């Protein structure tokens, strides 16, 4: 049920060098709200569910430790980078971007994702 117009919401993120997949997930229910992907070998439901699980664990952590203001989460695999960022605290909307590690520049990607999230709510 992925339609062109729904994908358009994530257009700015898909311009990041090394882009493979992006999705917006409602972290409180785990539901995928919008998605876009350039590769078929990544399971979108699994990646989105993993992001929601990580957000869940981190929200428990922030409740128990003296840390505040979670910005983003970066997971590095040998061939991929996963970047997660909270777009909205309520409803808790999470952006997950998966990048090809050989082509992506993590610092530049993180900056682009931060800019996208800021413009998303503005």
């Amino acid at each position: 049920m992925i339609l062109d117009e729904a994908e358009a919401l994530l257009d700015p993120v898909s311009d990041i060098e090394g882009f493979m997949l992006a999705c917006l997930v409602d972290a409180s229910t785990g539901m995928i709200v919008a998605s876009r992907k350039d590769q078929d070998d990544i399971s979108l439901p699994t990646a989105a569910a993993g992001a929601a699980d990580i957000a869940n664990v981190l929200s428990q952590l922030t409740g128990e430790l003296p840390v505040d203001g979670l910005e983003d989460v970066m997971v590095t695999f040998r061939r991929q980078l996963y970047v997660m960022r909270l777009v909205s605290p309520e409803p808790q909307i999470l952006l997950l971007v998966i990048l090809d590690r050989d082509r992506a520049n993590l610092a530049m990607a993180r900056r682009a994702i931060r800019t996208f999230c800021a413009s998303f709510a503005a």
Partner: protein
Amino acid sequence: MSQTSRFTRARQLTSTVLPGRRLDDYADQVTGRLRRIAAARGTGMLPFSGRSDGSIYFRDGKVAFAESTRTPGPAPHDPRAPDQPPLNKIIAILAIAEPTIDAALELLSVQSRFAKFRPSKIPDTGPVSDISLDALLAEVARRQRMLGQLSSVLSADTALARNPHIRPDTIRVSAVQWALLIRVRHGSTPRDLAWDLGRGVFGTTIEAYRLLARQLLSVAGPRPDGPGPGLAAMSFVRAVSVEKGETVPIINASAAPGCAD
């Protein structure tokens, strides 16, 4: 139709509300009926009655809306300017889509009778486009698996109690969790709290579980499936089937005015 098959059909319909009937049979029957409506590109509503009253509305074979007397409906939606930021569009879409999926989850999970599909006016769903039946059923199945994971600890109808030793200045919770905590009275259930907050029953049950895990809430009475070994680990990943070909549930943001900017 022969006399025998009419009796068989009547028995099938009435048996959906008979005690002892397997939930799987009900799920197969109701999804079969929904798939036939979708295949025929039907427009109208399928009413449900019994343990859960409600309706599922179709437009051209897609699900436009669903409502149940056991789940809160959408708040009156606020028509906004077409050039609103993407986040507001997402919020507007979730404000309709979430109650629809919540109601469908209830109607497809609690054994009820479903009557004849009939023509009906479709409620105004604002900026939300219709959901394909496959996407809806996949999302409902995912949520049922999530609730299955939690079933030894709590369900939407489990009575809860707030930890009496909480000191508000020492706990750090999200705004939603705080709103939930301050509304808990002894015996409140996630469903009661969902109605109180105007949020989805499924989402409220998940938040209640998170508060149980942090020992800010406890189960007030006996656990739903008897005394369990402790808190079950909740995992969204485990609830996702990785079978190839499964439809990915996605709410289409495309119908929001100006979203293709």
